[in-house]
């Protein structure tokens, strides 16, 4: 794991912790659930799961199998509008965090190196 990765991981953890503490994560979670339900994505996923259960058989079905079979397709079929909306909100939340924190050395040091990454 490179230093870059380590720093990114740390920042992700910090950002996540801040979101949890402020209660924003729960709000985002709630919003995501509502959107995914409204657009019918959840029902699609349930249909997929039922197909897997039909194939494998009710006695042999495990959570692991469901996760392995259904997750890739489910991730792909998330509607773009929902994704955009949530990403925007998350970004705002993170920018608010960094603007609030008075001393943020890790942020500024990474920003100078972040050009070439990803």
């Amino acid at each position, binding site marked *: 794991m490179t230093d870059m990765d380590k720093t990114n991981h740390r920042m992700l953890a910090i950002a996540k912790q801040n979101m949890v503490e402020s209660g924003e994560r729960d709000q985002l979670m709630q919003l995501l659930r509502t959107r995914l339900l409204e657009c019918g994505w959840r029902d699609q996923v349930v249909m997929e799961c039922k197909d897997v259960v039909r194939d494998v058989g009710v006695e042999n079905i495990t959570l692991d199998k469901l996760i392995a079979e259904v997750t890739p397709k489910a991730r792909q079929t998330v509607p773009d509008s929902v994704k955009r909306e*949530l990403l925007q909100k998350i*970004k705002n939340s993170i920018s608010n965090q960094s603007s609030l924190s008075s001393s943020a050395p890790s942020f500024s040091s990474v920003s100078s190196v972040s050009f070439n990454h990803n």
Partner: protein
Amino acid sequence: MFCDVNFSISSETFDELVEEVLIGVYFEVHRAAKHTKCLFVDESPTLEHEKYAIIDKKGLDIFGELPIKKQMECVCPNCHRNLAASRFAPHLEKCMGMGRNSSRIASKRIATSSVKNNDSDDDYDNNGDTDWNVYCGDQKKTRRKRLKNANGIGNGNSVHKKVNNSKANKSGLNTK
């Protein structure tokens, strides 16, 4: 510049949120599959469905049968015979020997007399009391037997003595 990292963080956060929703769905489906029979409940009728389908025709009832009185049958737990339901209760009375007119005592007597011929007369007379002593312990039976015996001989004193002895020991009274 800052946006790249920001974007990757946002993206990962979003993926985490979606994963959480997905796990919730999987748990629900898995539970429905394993613990209930309700996973495919909203789908086209199966064989079972057709077995219990509601019938709505003229002249038939909801099960599809004619509205005449049906004879119900049951099996006696004692003698394992097939009986009509309306005759079940009276049959049980006779069969188990608990009704008013059941002659179980008589049939028992016949049975015991055919098994062992050396039964004493006393036993005979006193066995008749088992009718209303069905659940009594042996002690009570033998006590009553002794009392009946005493009565039979006509010795009233001995009866009283017996009663007094058992009660006097406890209460300390001794009138005689």
